[in-house]
Every structure is written in structure tokens, then in C-alpha cells.
């Protein structure tokens, strides 16, 4: 049940232009051009080290591009005007720009010294400056949405991986970002906990008009919720298209090889699961 690319009439909310990122003389992203439309759900697939995560980290301002520009809402993210010249953005500019971006991490990164409720409330109170009672109300709504209303007084260490990641999703959502980044959010989870997290993300994708950039190894999931799929390899977008185009009619040999390998792995995975079930 895949959709066609939606007819997005508005201006893109995010625009990467000619973006290159070099780490220790290793080029991880090569001259990337990418537009993300408001509300668009994009899945980024590709082998490890293909630059997927860097695309998200540059937008979250966790890494600075080596060259090129990123625009958010038509405004440059990493640059600002100063006396008629374009200079690297300062913390104040980044702080303002970040308010429309949110991110969920592979390793959750919950605050271990705070209860679940405070994890979700903290930024509302201290970043958005929303009075505590209202902030708590909204945090509770979000925690209910991810099915954790009975755990609000617990600490992160008392939760399962899947529960932790659902808290992290609530924590990012409560800030109402216009674009939400998911960086391999199920990769650190035990297989049996992946489903509950994916279900929560699917729910958000259906209900919210937040744009989403999902870096994922879950192909069925990508196929189900994405409007557009990008396949990256070696720091470039090798191929992109609707889920049908990507999965049913891959053009480039690299994508074909990637999908074949993925299918094989899944078959092997299923086979070993059946074997394990038989042994029990």
C-alpha cells in the first residue's frame, strides 16, 4: 500500500544545495542536492557508511557542512548575514533555526537523571518557556499517544529499549517540529521490540503533517510510510523515487545489488527463525 509522490505545491521546507561533508579527509557526502517538502515523508536507505546519517546530522546542526548550503523555511541554516557578508552562523542563529527541527536517535539519548515525564517536559518548560502545568498536560498527552501513560514516574533505566525509544519520540514530538529526523531508531532494539516503535512512527506519519526524514534498514516499513525513497551509496544519492519505483523497478545496479542482498538476508533471517522455533 504505497502512494504516489504527493503533489506538494508549497515551497520546500528544507533545501540542501551542493552540500559536501568531509571527515578527516574522507568524503562522506558529495555535492548533495535535496529538497524536502512540508509534510513529506522520506525514507533514506543504503549501506552503512553511505552518508545517510550525515544528511540528518547536518540538518540537526550536530555537524557543520564542509561546503554548500542548507535552507530551512527559506532561510540559510549554517550561514547568516553579517555586514553584507555571509558568515558561519553563530549559536544564536542556530538556536532560532533549530526550533523547527527535531531528532530521534539510534541510542535514544534519554536523560537518565529525569523521570519519563520530565524527559518529555523539560524542553517545553526551559526552551519553549511554557508554564509547568500546561507543559505537563502536553507531555502527558504525548506519552499517552505512544502508550506510556502508566510509566511516567519511572526513570529511563527502568524501561525496555522499545519503551525508551517511544519516550524519545514523544520528547521530540512535543516540541512540534516542522521536520522530524529519525536516525536508525530501531537498530539498537531487540527484534521483538522493533514493531511497537515502528507502529508509533506509522501513527505519527498518518496523523501529523510533520515532514519526516527516516534513516532506516526496515525496508517494509520504508515502503509502507514513505512518499519518496532515497537510496544513498558512497556519499551520493544514487537513485530516488516512489516506493514502487525503488522496490519493484530499481534502475541502478548498486540499488539492485543492495535490494538483492537485503532480500537474501531476510530469507536467511526467516529461515533461522523457523529453525529456532522448530528446535524449541
Amino acid at each position, binding site marked *: 500500500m504505497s502512494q504516489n509522490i504527493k503533489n506538494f505545491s508549497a515551497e520546500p521546507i528544507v533545501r540542501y544545495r551542493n552540500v559536501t561533508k568531509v571527515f578527516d579527509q574522507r568524503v562522506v557526502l558529495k555535492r548533495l542536492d535535496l529538497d524536502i517538502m512540508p509534510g513529506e515523508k522520506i525514507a533514506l536507505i543504503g549501506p552503512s557508511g553511505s552518508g545517510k546519517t550525515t544528511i540528518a546530522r547536518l540538518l540537526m546542526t550536530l555537524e557543520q557542512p564542509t561546503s554548500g548550503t542548507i535552507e530551512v523555511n527559506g532561510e540559510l541554516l549554517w550561514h547568516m548575514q553579517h555586514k553584507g557578508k555571509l558568515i558561519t552562523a553563530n549559536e544564536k542563529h542556530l538556536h532560532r533555526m533549530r526550533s523547527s527541527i527535531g531528532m530521534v536517535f539510534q541510542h535514544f539519548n*534519554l*536523560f537518565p537523571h529525569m523521570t519519563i515525564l520530565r524527559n518529555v517536559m523539560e524542553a517545553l518548560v526551559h526552551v519553549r518557556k511554557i508554564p509547568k502545568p500546561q507543559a505537563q498536560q502536553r507531555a502527558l498527552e504525548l506519552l499517552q499517544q505512544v502508550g506510556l501513560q502508566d510509566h511516567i514516574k519511572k526513570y529511563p533505566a527502568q524501561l525496555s529499549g522499545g519503551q525508551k525509544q517511544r519516550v524519545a519520540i514523544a520528547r521530540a514530538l512535543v516540541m512540534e517540529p516542522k521536520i522530524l529526523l529519525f536516525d536508525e531508531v530501531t537498530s539498537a532494539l531487540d527484534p521483538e521490540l522493533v514493531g511497537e516503535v515502528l507502529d508509533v512512527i506509522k501513527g505519527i506519519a498518518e496523523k501529523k503533517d510533520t515532514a519526516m526524514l527516516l534513516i532506516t534498514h526496515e525496508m517494509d516499513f520504508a515502503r509502507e510510510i514513505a512518499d519518496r525513497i532515497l537510496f544513498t551509496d558512497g556519499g551520493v544519492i544514487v537513485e530516488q523515487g516512489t516506493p514502487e519505483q525503488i522496490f519493484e523497478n530499481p534502475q541502478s545496479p548498486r540499488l539492485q545489488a543492495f535490494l538483492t542482498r537485503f532480500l537474501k538476508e531476510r530469507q536467511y533471517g526467516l529461515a533461522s527463525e523457523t529453525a529456532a522455533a522448530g528446535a524449541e
Partner: protein
Amino acid sequence: MWDWNYTWEILPQLLKVVPITIAATLSAFIFACALGAPLAMAKQSKNKWLSLPVSAIADFIRKTPLIIQLFVLVFVLPTSIGLTLSPFVAGMIGLGIHYSTYLSEVYRSGIEAVPKGQWEASTALNFTKTNTWLRIILPQSIPPTIPVMGNYLITMFKETPTLSAITLVELLMTAKTLGSSSFKYVEALTLVGLIFLVLSYPSALLVRALERRMQAREGSAAIK
């Protein structure tokens, strides 16, 4: 040899200065704790113009003897900038500055133990730098350092006799005065040693208990 009558006679005089010794230790410790935090943050700063000089000064203070620093405070400052400090204040500042350089290292290890993901989550939630430090990083980095800080408190307490060199009337100074007037040093000095032992030992036990409780708390949080 050992004069019991004399011992009982001088004990009250020695005990009378115990509060001063403890007050000097505690005020110097609080001063060191307060100064150690910004010192640790400055040393970690990405701004080289801040981190390098601060690190150099801290290294200099740590690698030179305390007593010289105390002499600078008491004998150099009055003649150079006309600032005369009482022995107590000079002792508090000198001992405090000296140990702040050690405590800043303790803080640093605590700060570095906080995973990188905590900083990244703080950025993603758009916390300001100040809020990230105050609400996310420091609350996680300070508790594990408490036992080490406790040990430094005891070390500083045992360091207070150095302050007798700048005429602070603490335990050693009192013992020396008593000894020189009666020529009976054994009793006075032995008592000083015993008083230090009696005060340090329970403190050390307390620190160890604290350490065990912290470990137990971490363990139970992980299991639950």
C-alpha cells in the same frame, strides 16, 4: 617520659582550636568546589584563548607547593598591591585555590563520563548552552564524583597544619606554642596526631559508605 597530668592539662587548649581547623577546611573546600567548576568548564572550552591559559595556570598551581602559594598571598600581596589578608582568609583562599585545580580534574572526569549522546539530545531539543550544562550535563557528572570529592575534603583537612606557616592558630601552631613554653613536645604533638586521626577516620568511613550507597543506587536503577 609521658606526663599524663600535662596531657590532660593541654587537651582542652588543643580542642579549643579544633573548630577553627574544621572551619578553615570547610570554607576552603567550599571555595575549591565553587572555583573548580568554572575552571573545569574553561579548560574544556573550545575557545583556545580561554582553555590554554587556564590549563597552564591550573597546572602551575598544582605543580608548585602550597606553602609557597600561601607565602605569596600573605607576604607578596600586601607589598605589591597593598592587600592584607587575615591568616584565616589567606589560608582559605590559598588552600581553596590549590585544591580547586585538583577538584577541576575530578569535575572534568565526571563531565567526560557523560555520553556524547546527551549533548546531542540537548542540541536536538534546542537547549541553550547554559541550560545544557545546568540541567543535563552537571546533574549527571557531579553525583559520581562525590566520593572522590569526599576524599579531597579529608586530604585538605590533613593539609591544614601547613596553614600554621602563615600564623593561623590551628592545631599544629597551638601544639608548637605549648611545646616551646614547657619543652614537652611529645604530648602536644601526639595529641594533635590523635585528634586528626579521630576526626579523619570517621569521615573516611562516611565517604566509603557514601560510595557504596551510590554504587548500590546505580545498580538498582539498572536492574529495575
